[in-house]
């Protein structure tokens, strides 16, 4: 099982739960499982976070493999270009309220 840790404000979306043990083989699966566990996370995940797998930071990399014993951190995205292609809401620390 990969150990998954949410860094920073992301845990606000999960009601304070910041650590998970998940059986996933790639980033896309990770996002899917997290979204099933906490549906409110879904809109923050795909382009709004960077994923550190065993110390290596990946951005916009849905197909990146995750090992069975990997340590995974979900971080605020440092930068990226995918967002100019399509809108996917981002990390809650950078999120406007829905009323806007």
């Amino acid at each position: 099982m990969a150990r998954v840790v949410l860094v920073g404000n992301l845990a606000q979306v999960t009601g304070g739960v910041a650590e998970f043990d998940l059986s996933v083989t790639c980033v896309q699966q990770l996002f899917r499982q997290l979204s099933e566990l906490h549906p409110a996370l879904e809109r923050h995940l795909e382009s709004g976070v960077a994923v550190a797998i065993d110390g290596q930071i990946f951005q916009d990399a849905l197909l990146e493999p995750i090992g069975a014993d990997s340590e995974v951190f979900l971080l605020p995205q440092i930068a990226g270009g995918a967002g100019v292609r399509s809108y996917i809401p981002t990390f809650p620390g950078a999120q406007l309220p829905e009323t806007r």
Partner: protein
Amino acid sequence: MTETNGHTQANGHSYVGTRQIRPDGVDKVTGRARFGADYNLPGQLIGRVLRSPHPHARIVSIDTSKAEALPGVKAVVTREDFGDQPSEFVPAGEMMMNYKDVVRNVMAREKALYEGHPVAAVAATSVAIARRALKLIDVKYEVLPHVIDVVEAMRPGAPLLHDDLFTVGAEPKPDKPSNIAKRVEIKQGDVAAGFKKADVVIEREFKTAPVHQGYIEPHAALATVSEDGATELWTTTQGHFIVRAHCARLLGLDIGKVRVTATEIGGGFGGKTVVYLEPLAIALSRKAKRPVKMVMSREEVFKASGPTSGAVVRVKLGATKAGKFTAAFAELKYQAGAFQGSPVQPGVMCAYAPYDIENVHVIGYDVVSNRPKVAAYRAPGAPISEYAVESVVDEIAKKLDIDPIDLRMQNAAREGTKAAYGPKFGPIGLEETLNAIRKTEHWNAPLRKWQGRGVASGFWFNIGGETCVSLTVNEDGTISLMAGTPDIGGLRAALTSVAADELGVPYDKIRPIIGDTGSLGFNFLTGGSRSAFSGSMALVEAAKQIKADLCARACKLWEAKPDQVEFSGGHVKPLGALADKVKPMSVADFAKVAGKTGGPIGGVGRINAQGAGPSFGTHLVDLEVDPETGRATILRYTVAQDAGRALSPAYVEGQFQGGAVQGIGWALNEEYVYGADGKLQNAGFLDYRMPVASDVPMIDAILVEVANPKHPYGVRGVGETPIVPPLGAIANAMEAATGIRFTELPMSPPKVLKALKEKGLNKA
């Protein structure tokens, strides 16, 4: 290094790691290179922008009828010409941007939110007519109270910029709007317990001024829109694919109909990752049906393009008597300018990144005020928070009587250290930079009275991202190399070296260009210290395609099997018994028979580069303070930074030196000065004091190379980390020279003199 076959050979490669002349150098030193304002088209109009004279005002009405009636005026645009955008955040360079805000920053809608905010734009047949037209536009404002200072903007009752801005990340969720756009934090360990273990705790509050990127070339754009909507744009930018995306979005254009060419660029440093003039020029051209050229004045650059944040930072750091850091806390308040999106998030993540500390808690606030919207500036957010931390680290070293390099070494992040922002570091070179500085003659050189020496370290993440490059083998065997990221700091030299080594072709037989958006697949911008890192990775992929193609052609020509040939040393070579029958063929040999063996030869590398290795640096500076004037003179400066592997050492050193010089300006002189009326008082290089060549010594650069295992050549990004340590290093040197801990930047002569007088020290 050794000389082989007329090539300088270093570390097993012919050109990588050597000092080659940059391919764009001749044009740049002869004046042939065409920058943004150098482009012109037949029949072009001149575009000018009407800007708000008020820092905060509701726009009641805009009457353009008199301007439109002026002979020679061909188009006028206002907020009515830009459709509103929904609230959508997207990453933009190393900052986040919201299209709802971008469209309002490009052209004010409900309110003008800073002095210089665009309110209308005209296109006319001459500059004089355009200026007269601007005066004929009647804008009725309802002037509102303004707020400039970040702390004042956070206070309840402060003038509110956006009545729909509720602090995100605050708990409980606020029920009233404020100027605090968001609250972010990182936390690990038990900070309270960590401080209890400390023998010494230092807590200080620091203040930094907003500073401009100071690129020498102002923003410029030339647009032409044809009757069928096909749009061409030439602009000085760090990312023409990003410009294309933003303009298409803001103006409702198909991306495929917009072709953007990045001109040569006279500096960007993050400030040219956003759009200002580009959508206006396209909108005016679309309306006028003629090309429109727009160039900002220096005053406009200062008043209406992004500086970086000013900030207030509180730092608390605890250590044992032996010098081990036990706990760290920081609170960061960053100005975002008129719209949210300061670099406070990376500021939070970077603050303690150089150190291995078990207990860390950092909180950050993103705060809007009536200033121009901030833009990225080299390692956005990091210099500010790390300046404060490095100042306190120095103070702890003094209090514990520990050498400041020893203290940093004792606490330094190394491979396996869990970063304060979560993951563990891979191979990194902070310790190596500290050791490199300690070994310099500079470190032990004697100092006189009023002279001081300071040291500080710094960190930046670096990024990869989407990248596309192409290599084409020409008919004579020369190579055309096309990259899609503007060359700001020697990219073409770095990529040409890699291509030369990959294909075994002489450096001067490769011509690199920056392709337009119609020539290559999507490229993210030049930013995040990514262009040489990502571009060289993509180039290796493109070269692999060529090598595989040549080997396949050789098999057909020689009637050989794939395992009977290999590509090495710039040739396809026959192996085994085949070697007795045929001679190796060079890339040029294949070029001659390309048409007869399958057609043109080329490769395209298309990647989303991952594996950017973080970069650490340590800076050492000597300065001298004149006690009569308070002026600080930088006497000597040494930079040591981990480059992973320097593809072009001379241009890597140039990045180190440039970052140090910009940091010197940030530390000693640069600041936005506002009057009580909320207007910028120093919007020009005469009053906004940037360092010039005569202000700084030669910056010594030490290349530390701890290879990045995720890159085929070991490369790390190098462009941003060099601006992180100077602020702390110079503040520490100032303390060493005067005995005074300055907690506010810039440490300009009036402030230094005042502090010296207060201490009775202003006589030599």
